[in-house]
């Protein structure tokens, strides 16, 4: 695992963060729930909570889907290529490429769309950046930079857990085992292979 230069992280006074969605995207509750699951994966292992709020301007974390040049100097590039980006703490900005073919649920590997991208997989990765993690060379890690289309990878690897716990400590309720129980519960009926 790696950190951003200077190891930026949320201060001790900010352990209960709020997040909100760009109103212009008009996301459905189902689409928003994907992010709730993604946040849960991180809060399982560190003593932080994430709560959705309707106030986009005052939220600690602001999530939006944008196309092409969206004003932050990091334009998106259409289908595939760069999928999303997020800023280091305490910026709280998470941007996803509106031009991707995002799949919210189900077994994305069976999608007839070759360029289908699993939204939760990307969300879990970008939240890692929001919390202060950089990219990892461990291919199993969530913080590995690339992910093929039609691939689902949402489970934190030990490398991710070690990195994030170095920044924030361990969630006292975390028993040190894999976070796979979350995934098994939330994808019941699907046939994912890990």
């Amino acid at each position, binding site marked *: 695992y*790696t*950190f*951003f*230069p200077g190891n930026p992280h949320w201060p001790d006074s900010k352990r209960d963060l709020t997040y909100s969605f760009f109103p212009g995207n008009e996301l*459905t509750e*189902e*689409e928003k729930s994907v992010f709730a699951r993604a946040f849960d994966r991180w809060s399982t292992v560190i003593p932080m909570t994430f709560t959705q709020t309707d106030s986009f301007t005052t939220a600690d974390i602001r999530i939006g889907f944008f196309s092409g040049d969206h004003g932050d100097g*990091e334009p*998106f*590039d*259409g*289908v*595939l*290529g*760069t*999928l*999303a*980006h*997020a800023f280091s703490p305490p910026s709280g900005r998470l941007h996803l490429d*509106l*031009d*991707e*073919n*995002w*799949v*919210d*649920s*189900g*077994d*994305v590997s*069976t*999608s*007839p*769309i070759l*360029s*289908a*991208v699993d939204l939760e997989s*990307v969300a879990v*990765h*970008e939240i890692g*950046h929001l919390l202060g993690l*950089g*990219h*990892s*060379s461990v*291919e199993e890690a969530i913080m590995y*930079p*690339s*992910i*093929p*289309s039609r691939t689902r990878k949402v489970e934190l690897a030990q490398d991710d857990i070690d990195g994030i716990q170095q920044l924030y400590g361990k969630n006292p309720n975390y028993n040190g085992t894999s976070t796979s129980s979350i995934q098994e519960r939330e994808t019941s009926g699907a046939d994912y292979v890990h």
Partner: protein
Amino acid sequence: RFFPNVSSIPPGFVPNATAPAWDSFKKFAGCRAGENFDGLSKLKQYFHYFGYIPNSPSNFTDDFDDAFESALKTYQQNFNLNVTGELDQQTLNKLVQPRCGNADIVNGTTTMNSGKWMAFNSTSLFHTVGH
């Protein structure tokens, strides 16, 4: 372009046909140092964007130069590929994969595998004593 569930996508459905970004990189297979390849400047821009070429000239050339080779080797190291310094198929397959837009190397300090390698080589982790 949100698909609420995979099962809701009709078989054979094809969204607006747009070539995936970076697909054009596939034509660079076999490129080697010292040569010039039309469009290689795009790949240099890619490496610059993700932090592998720190200094940005006003215009990248299409030359497979030393800076590009160095960037390529660092990339191969970071992604656990064979460090050949060549645009082999394995490397190209990784380069064209969709990915996060955040840089792998930020201000030369956040460096994935290559940072560990540099630390290994630049600090006194090992001490040798002559007998």
